[in-house]
């Protein structure tokens, strides 16, 4: 087992090198330069000012030198400084935005699964009834509705007409003076709509998954056996069928984990939430190489770690993988 783990860890090294190389190349292949974005179309900027800025960012060096400088820093866990005018460390820019994106995504994910499972079960146990069809229509509407449109309608209803919820942002102005309970309550009110909108769209996929998986299980012999034993329908469904039906959904949850650090540009923009989605989008649009590469690298690393953890779990469960014999 230790041997297997060691091998897997070693394999991460060439993978990481490959990822840095591809990331760097792709980012630099995009036309335009950060210098262009800051200085173009400004008559006060001479040629010399552009050269000055290129030199400041080290863009006048040969590409391979730029790459090795960047990788060298990366090896020391330094993501470098942003190529925007603020010139801040990339790490600061990411860490100030990561918590909000992470917590939003986790809450949304929990909500998605929390709703999708009962919806799926309900649809499966009432298969082909009006309820099932109603649910199907509802979740597909959620799937089809454009996020920005739904978001604006909800804002207008709850924020402007009914005045129940704040429209955008994370805090009310002046919330700094609130006590901690009121402060958290204020933030929770701000997050209601974004989380609702973020989860609504994903309900369709997950609940359909749950439904078909449940239907599949219900058709199995052991369920028939359970029913034949005279167990109540409740026990049959929630004790025997549910556990097995949940398995595919757990795989889904695993796949969602690397996505946790990514944010959605659209709803972050609409709800004025300063998250990772906006940061990444703006960095790409302004060709802020260090920020783009930093976020991509962190995402790649998380995916690698996620895969590693999953593989280790498989290995624990399956001796053939552990001992490297493989399936013939």
């Amino acid at each position, binding site marked *: 087992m230790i041997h297997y783990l060691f091998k897997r860890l070693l394999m991460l090294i060439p993978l990481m090198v490959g990822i840095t190389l591809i990331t760097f190349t792709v980012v630099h292949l995009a*036309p335009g330069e950060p210098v262009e974005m800051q200085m173009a179309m400004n008559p006060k900027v001479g040629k010399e000012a552009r050269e000055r800025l290129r030199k400041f*960012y080290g863009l006048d060096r040969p590409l391979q030198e730029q790459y090795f400088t960047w990788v060298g820093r990366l090896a020391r866990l330094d993501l470098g400084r942003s190529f925007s005018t603020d010139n801040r460390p990339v790490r600061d820019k990411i860490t100030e935005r990561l918590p909000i994106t992470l917590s939003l995504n986790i809450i949304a994910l929990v909500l998605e699964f929390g709703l999708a499972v009962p919806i799926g079960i309900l649809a499966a146990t009432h298969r082909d009834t009006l309820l099932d069809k109603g649910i199907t229509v509802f979740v597909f509407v959620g799937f089809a509705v454009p996020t920005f449109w739904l978001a604006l309608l909800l804002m207008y209803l709850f924020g402007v007409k009914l005045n129940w919820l704040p429209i955008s942002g994370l805090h009310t102005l002046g919330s700094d003076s609130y006590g901690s309970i009121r402060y958290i309550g204020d933030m929770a009110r701000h997050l209601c709509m974004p989380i609702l909108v973020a989860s609504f769209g994903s309900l369709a996929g997950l609940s359909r998954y749950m439904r078909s998986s449940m239907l599949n299980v219900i058709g199995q012999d052991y369920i028939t056996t359970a029913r034949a034993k005279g167990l109540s329908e409740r026990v049959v469904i929630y004790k025997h069928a549910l556990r097995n039906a949940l398995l595919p959904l757990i795989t889904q949850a695993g796949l969602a984990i690397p996505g946790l650090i990514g944010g959605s540009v659209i709803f972050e923009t609409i709800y004025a939430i300063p998250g990772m989605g906006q940061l990444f989008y703006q960095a790409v649009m302004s060709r802020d190489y260090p920020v783009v590469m930093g976020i991509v690298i962190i995402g790649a690393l998380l995916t690698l770690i996620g895969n590693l953890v999953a593989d280790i779990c498989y290995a624990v469960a399956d001796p053939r993988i552990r001992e490297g014999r493989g399936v013939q």
Partner: protein
Amino acid sequence: MSAVRRLRLLLPAFLLAVTACTQSPAPSRGGAHDDKPAYGDALVEGTIGDASTLIPLLASDSSSHAVAGLVYNGLVKYDKDLKIVGDLAESFDIASDGLTITFHLRKGVKWHDGAPFTSRDVLYTYRVTIDPKTPTAYAEDFKQVKSIAAPDDHTVRVTYGAPFAPALASWGNAILPAHLLEGKDITKSTLARAPVGTGPYRFKEWVAGQKIVLESNHDYFEGRPWIDRYIYRIIPDTSTMYMELKAGAVDMMGLTPVQYARQTTGIRFTSLFNKYRYPSSSYVYMGYNLRHPLFRDKRIRQALTAAIDKDELIHGVLFGMGQKAVGPIAPGRWAYNPHVKDIAYDPKHAAELLAQAGWKEKNSDGILMKNGKPFSFTILTNQGNQQRLLTSQIIQQRLRYVGIDVKIRVVEWATFLKEFVDKGNFEVVMLGWSTSPDPDMFDVWHSSKTNPGELNFVGFKNAGVDRLLVEGRSTFDIEKRKKAYFRIQEIMADEQPYTFLYVPDALPVVSSRIRGVKPAPIGIGYNQIKWYVPKAEQVY
């Protein structure tokens, strides 16, 4: 951010600028009995982009300059009528030869940390700006300076090698605190996130991506601002911002034309908000690549202008919130030539001009043909600007009527600049310029500025204009400058290197609880320290 990137022609700090207000605000509520100015309350302004750095020397985006504009001062500023007056300089003299400017600095001005402001700060700002290690976009004007000296703590004398009219405005750049920056690396200074200036508001707090909070400077040299706090809320989406405005969480924002014309007309809205409308300091144009054989012929360019109905564009794209552009200088400025006649919308005249240029026959699709080739070109514009796209589409249809086949291509901004504009790899571009109060436009029109990456990317070369551009910038004599710029506008009207399309209006809206907003040629922001909220209506 980059949702809408405006092209800039001058220090974005002066962006709130420009001519005559066309609509006065609704009368204020509640009568006059309790309208006395009072200290207190806060003004919340919505902005679509976060600032990047609050050292204005290093910033290149308008959000940063807007915030920094309240925190710092320059030596001079534009007053409400767009005239240059002293700011940190109490007064200034220009020597009769135009080579030396002497600034007499205000005495008793203090930085927000209490240190006195002196000529040392001015010298430092000059030096750090021209320092080759400083990554700034604003060094160019200061490089014309031959020598600078500070005979005492409150006098600065600047000498130029040749008279240079835009020089004076360049001293409107923010003066930085020498005592906090001298001998340090400005790019790593903490002032970028927590600035110390001399301005009416001092910096309090910046929550990245959410808000920037400023507090009034009780010792401000022009008097303590009435409103205690100025808060910028960052809301990237204009629809969201509009809803926040209606819900009362934003006090001031810029409206889009459709919001101004259609969504903010009811009595419920107008009783709570005052809308303002005045021409913005920018124009939208269609620029022809003059190196392209199709557009070398002046008659073709004139024909294209005659085939475009500018009124229709203003009506369709801006809901009427704008005016026709005739040349590169906005109506109402001192350098604007009111006698220049625009080429009127006249498809018949357009057809005649095209026929003169050899485009007579039409093919079966109704497209003009010459030597077996159809008259066809592509309008290139940047992604994320809906107005420019709509403008292109209306023009496409108009030009189809006279037999010209137009395609439209939308390209992401960075690619647009690098691959198309810089390389001269385009036929027609749809773009806009922001204009500065000073009419100098050497960089956009002089024939020496046609190299890749420079701003005369359409390749306009005209010896007469070259001479006049130099003449216009090398004297401080307004009458002489006027003559030069008037003539330039006449030549441009004939040459049509661009089809100048329209000047959109700036459409700010301000909560009616805020009093004292007086629109002027420069806009509404100039007297912000005199805005106030009567005691009874204060909410924060």
